[in-house]
């Protein structure tokens, strides 16, 4: 499957990535190459095979609904690019 510039632009928007015009062609070619590699998968008849998401088919255990974390805001915000009054700062969204 050949990945066109249009598809690359759409996926770039979904993944919040930005590419220059030159990069668009390059990333499209690279995606095409990967998809050609994975194309072999279509030769396998998988009708009736249950998809496997965990090797031991383990399910997620539930834990008791109790508070285990204290207030770590100050610790987590120490490494933030920009904060004010305990809030994360981003460029103004609403004029």
């Amino acid at each position, binding site marked *: 499957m050949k990945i066109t510039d249009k598809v690359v632009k759409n996926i770039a928007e979904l993944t919040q990535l930005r590419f220059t015009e030159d990069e668009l062609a390059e*990333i499209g070619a690279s*995606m095409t190459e990967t998809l050609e590699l994975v194309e072999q*998968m279509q030769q396998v008849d998988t009708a009736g095979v249950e998809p496997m998401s965990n090797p031991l088919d383990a399910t997620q255990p539930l834990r008791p609904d109790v508070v285990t974390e204290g207030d770590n805001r100050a610790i987590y915000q120490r490494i933030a690019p920009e904060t004010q009054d305990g809030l994360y700062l981003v460029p103004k969204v609403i004029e």
Partner: protein
Amino acid sequence: MQYDSIAQQLDNLIRGTYSSVELTRHYLDRIKQHAQLNCYISVLEESALEAAQQADQARAAGNAGPLTGVPIAHKDIFCTQGVKTTAGSQMLYNYDAPFDATVVSRLATAGAVTIGKTNMDEFAMGSSNETSYYGAVLNPWDTTRVPGGSSGGSAAAVAAGLCSAATGTDTGGSIRQPAAHCGITGIKPTYGRISRWGMIAFASSLDQAGPMTRTAEDAALLLGVMAGEDPLDSTCLAADVPNYVESLNKPLDGLKIGICEDFFAEGLEAGSEQVIRESLRVFEDLGATISSVRLPHIEYSIPAYYVIAPAEASANLSRYDGVRFGYRCKEPTDLADLFKRSRSEGFGDEVKRRIMVGAFTLSTGYYDAYYRQAQQIRRLIKDDFQAAFAEVDILLGPTAPQPAFSLGEKTGDQVAMYLQDIYTIAGNLAGLPAMSIPAGFSSDLPVGLQLIGNYLDEASILAAAHQFQQRTDWHQRVPASMAAEN
């Protein structure tokens, strides 16, 4: 002393032949002396010496744990509280982790001294350590060659005698392949054996941590400390962790070893094949019986992996937004510009490629043909292995298709790079324990032998590896330029 196994180092620490401070200082000196290998992203001189001093005091006071005073390095994918944790990416160039990974805290509790954080492919996406934002790592056996990846810094550091052992992670071969290329021992246990808490996520259904060491005995020792249930990781298994060291000498008499014939097809370098075939004699001498097994769906491992891993990565890496931590672009004009530019500038090319492919295969109309099909093939691969394990106890084959390749040799050829993990990926897809041990040389470069065990049966492959190492000295070979005791 840099090439003593941990078992020997513990013996020397107990006897007082040297102290942890002396051992730690020795490694710190060597790290400086061999800085050109670029094994480390961060060297923790001050805190390591402090921890070593405390280790010596604890030992003197009779409070030594299983690893007290042993200097180890962590792959820079494990969060270390207050210490820069980059995952090899510019995206996390300023990320001082606010907490410790479970692997880090367990090893510290056992007494290990953290000497530094090792270099790696960016977000563990690579097989040569060349995608690191912090530069390539050089292979200590031949500095014109790659150490393998993604745990290339850890593998090279152990091989160069720059730490006693190191941690690694393995999503598609990232412990085993660099272990093979650097002539050391590395084990990826069963998926879920070791907690992934604090291990920066790449592909969550495949990621697994493990130790990288000089010997199988050391791997057994470290694995015992690292493994076990963790309430902080809901995929971490509640299964009991056996004493891996105690079972190392369990006789191999009657052990049934299956040779993965599919791994000896076209593409395996002749010298490597010879090394692996010759190793069979050692196992036969130890009383094992050898037979051939076939894994019919193994050829679909790489295609299935290059759907599943990028898909999961695209989701995991959506958290890097330039808002809460990590890289933020300069002077964003608006919120969209902040997100897009932070991500586009902060991630390297290989990471962006995989995010794009992953998002594409998960997008509307493509999910069934790609992700679902890959997850179905994954079960067929698991079933192949289960059929094999009905006949044999462990599987044996090469770790990599050839020894370490030259720096830059495969950077322009994405598919050639992806094919480096052709023998290791199936172990991740099936979630089986697998390890690589040094088994010989091809053109003066180390060749790794891979052993794959059944679920939760790390003990069998560790015992086979240990007894192989009792009969051979490949694991004791060191690069000539690294052998000097200074």
